[in-house]
């Protein structure tokens, strides 16, 4: 009888410690922040060589998505929207999703005020 009581006490000690020490530990959302970095850097790379402005002026999301393929790490899914005011949201089913905005004023021959919304998910 005494042994059972001591065994129960030992189990309660362990469970209580686990709950108190670990239950309130917040889970930092590091993955999506890193995805946003990948996305921003990818768009910046395309911006620096002038291709992003071209895609934006043409509203060519297909070409933009193709160019991003080699810049976004494997395992991260993505899609883009090019818009100014009325921006459609792609239908994406995922619990872990984030997005990044990237603005462009076009190029020397075409002034446009538009943005790319890059959606990233797993």
């Amino acid at each position, binding site marked *: 009888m005494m042994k059972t009581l001591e065994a129960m006490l030992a*189990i309660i000690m362990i469970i209580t410690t686990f709950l108190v*020490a670990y239950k309130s530990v917040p889970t930092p959302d590091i993955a999506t922040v890193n995805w946003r970095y990948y996305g921003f850097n990818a768009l910046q790379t395309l911006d620096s060589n002038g291709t992003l402005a071209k895609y934006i002026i043409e509203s060519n999301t297909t070409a933009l998505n193709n160019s991003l393929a080699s810049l976004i790490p494997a395992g991260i899914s993505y899609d883009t929207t090019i818009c100014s005011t009325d921006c459609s949201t792609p239908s994406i089913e995922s619990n872990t999703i984030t997005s990044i905005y990237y603005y462009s004023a076009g*190029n020397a021959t075409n002034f446009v005020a538009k943005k790319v919304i890059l959606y990233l998910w797993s």
Partner: protein
Amino acid sequence: MVMNKGQMYLILATIIVTVLAILRISLNIDFILENNKQLQQNLDTLELSNIENGIRQSLVNNYNIPARSDNINSFIDFARSSELGRSNTLSGISIQSEYPTVIASSTATMNVTIYNFLGSQIDSMILTWSYDNSITTLTNLADNTTTKIILSFNTASNTNYVLITSYTSSNATAVKNVTIPVEIGASKFIGFYRMAFSTQQSTPISEFTNTANMNQTQYA
């Protein structure tokens, strides 16, 4: 002394509890959270620099268009409205000055365009022009509006003037000195921009001057 089985359980439990506590301390969640917050703040700064680049690019793209100041401001308004849609606030002020080709010892006029996007009305603004220490007072500049004034100067040689701008709104009181380089035979655009980008994580600030010589056929 011989321990019974029950006492052994208790000693084992004490050891496990100690190990769990040590593991929890070594996890250093606070450090990870702080690091994550820092990453998000850096991302906010990058996003603001993207808007800054858009403003610089707007001047390049509107180089040969007389309404270049208005178009640059329309880009700012676009970015501002867009960020509002995701609960971020882009606020600030732009002071864009432009003068035509300067002829030595002839009076030249300079157009100054002030765009208030501070998020509140500028109750009063005082512009002091160092050329002649003249003072222009403006009042009640509503948010998201543009105000234009004309200043003049007359010089026989290259010089730098200063446009001292002090303003007061319900959100801010500030004094900004914008240097206006005057060059005989040159036409210049001098854009001063101050922006604050407020997100859930941080409020990075960008303040810069964008100067262009307007005598070429294209931006150089």
